[in-house]
């Protein structure tokens, strides 16, 4: 599995719908993007993920602090 946003493979399924079989949640431990299996393709498919919201390792490591 690949993160739709930063294309890291450090992703895992972290939750299952309380009503079994409806959806799963996944989370990326590099950019902390989280997504549900039932979301539109633009949220869950790396190739359909919008270019303006994609992240590189550099974007993540150089993000400014606020406090």
């Amino acid at each position, binding site marked *: 599995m690949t993160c739709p946003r930063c294309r890291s493979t450090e992703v895992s399924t*972290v939750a299952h719908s309380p009503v079994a079989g409806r959806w799963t949640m996944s989370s990326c431990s590099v950019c*902390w993007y989280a997504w549900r299996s039932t979301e539109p393709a633009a949220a869950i498919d790396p190739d359909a993920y*919008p270019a303006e919201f994609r992240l590189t390792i550099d974007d*993540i490591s150089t993000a400014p602090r*606020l406090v």
Partner: protein
Amino acid sequence: MPQHYDDLRGFLDALDAEKQLLHIDRPVKPEPDLGAAGRAVANLGATAPALLFDNIDGFSDARVALNVHGSWANHALMLGMPKTSSIKEQFVELGERWLKFPVRAERRERAPWQEITIEQDINLFELLPVFRLNPGDGGPYLDKAAVVTRDSADRDNFGKQNVGIYRLQVKGPDHLGIQSAPPHDFGRHIVSADQLHHGMPIAIAIGNDPILTLAAGTPLEYDQSEYEMAGAWRGGAPYPIVRAPYTGLDVPWGSEIVLEGEVHYADREYEGPFGEFTGNYSGGRALPVVTVKRVHMRRNPIFEHLYLGQSWTEIDYLLALNTSVPMHRQLKAEFPEVEAVNAMYTHGLVTIISTRVRHGGFGRVVALRALTTPHGIGYSKIVIVVDETVDPFNLEQVMWALSVKVNPEFDAITIPRMYEMALDPSGYPQGVTARLILDATTPRSPDRRGEFSQPVTAYPESADWEKIFREMTR
């Protein structure tokens, strides 16, 4: 004493009775339905209802409330006023109730949210119907929770205990990111904890009565208690609080859900972006990290959320009069002539002030003071000053004043390279902007200019007729 509510459920019942609540029982998907509905209901305008969803895909008993504060009608009902109350009437009422501050909080031992407690295997994605609000958000968020922390250097100071609304990204089952900047009280608390080299206890109360949320979104002074302000805004009825067992922090008695945990010491992690109140995404930043250690909740809790995006949305109602009233008080302290302040356009990026004019040039004096109020320092990018005869909440009147009182040669004043809050997308660089004062007051001596000596005034009886018409159309 005006009507007030101890919890969200009580207020939703009141909204229902006033036909200001829509029950949505058709099946909805967390994405895109809930965020899409939040945007859509905001488009209905000043009488928009709150929404309560109870049939959410994948959950057996979850409920989501949206747009609870999201109209002037709901805002008035929160204050126990008729739902047709004008904005200025609500502004005046909030200002008068402020005078009761502080009202000591009422401490209780038991709370409805103590019904269920989870200590092991906490998974917020399964416990709560969290959802992505706007398509570009980095994940689901808690964006309307009351976040409670104390100053680590002065832990027993009740006034310095802060209750604020800060966005929290749900990154993992028990793992949150939280946004705050140094001027915020939370920002000061995290700096204080980092200096002492330890983490900071945090409580996150979700689904609260509307007045507490209003107080939590108000720019109070550092040592002023939001609970004591909530009591004032309830008309003097003490606000009920209960000590959260794991952290010892004081949280609302009436909350639907209370999370307790710890803000990590000196840890910063990528957070965002999130569609913000400016109508633009925030970008990503390295922000503090929270681990959740306890979840307390009522049975069948209501998960309250807020839509925000291009104005107007619910957040514009929630940050409107509670921003305007303190700025009015600060201006009036030095200039009693100031009649009213409207700092509700994108949290006060545009601020409109009405004032009596003491002498020529007085309008711009008042505007300059607005720029140096605690909120104005970060927000008042454009300040419009009008005469006291113009209602600053009535944009038709404000536009009239701009149309005929302003001579751009004299009345448009720009101050370059000023600080502002970093989320304004027009900042260049981010956090820096010019300020613009538009002085639309009538010129007075010694600044004599223009032909303003013959304004059209109505017959005095007009005021009586207006009262009659308002009563007849209520």
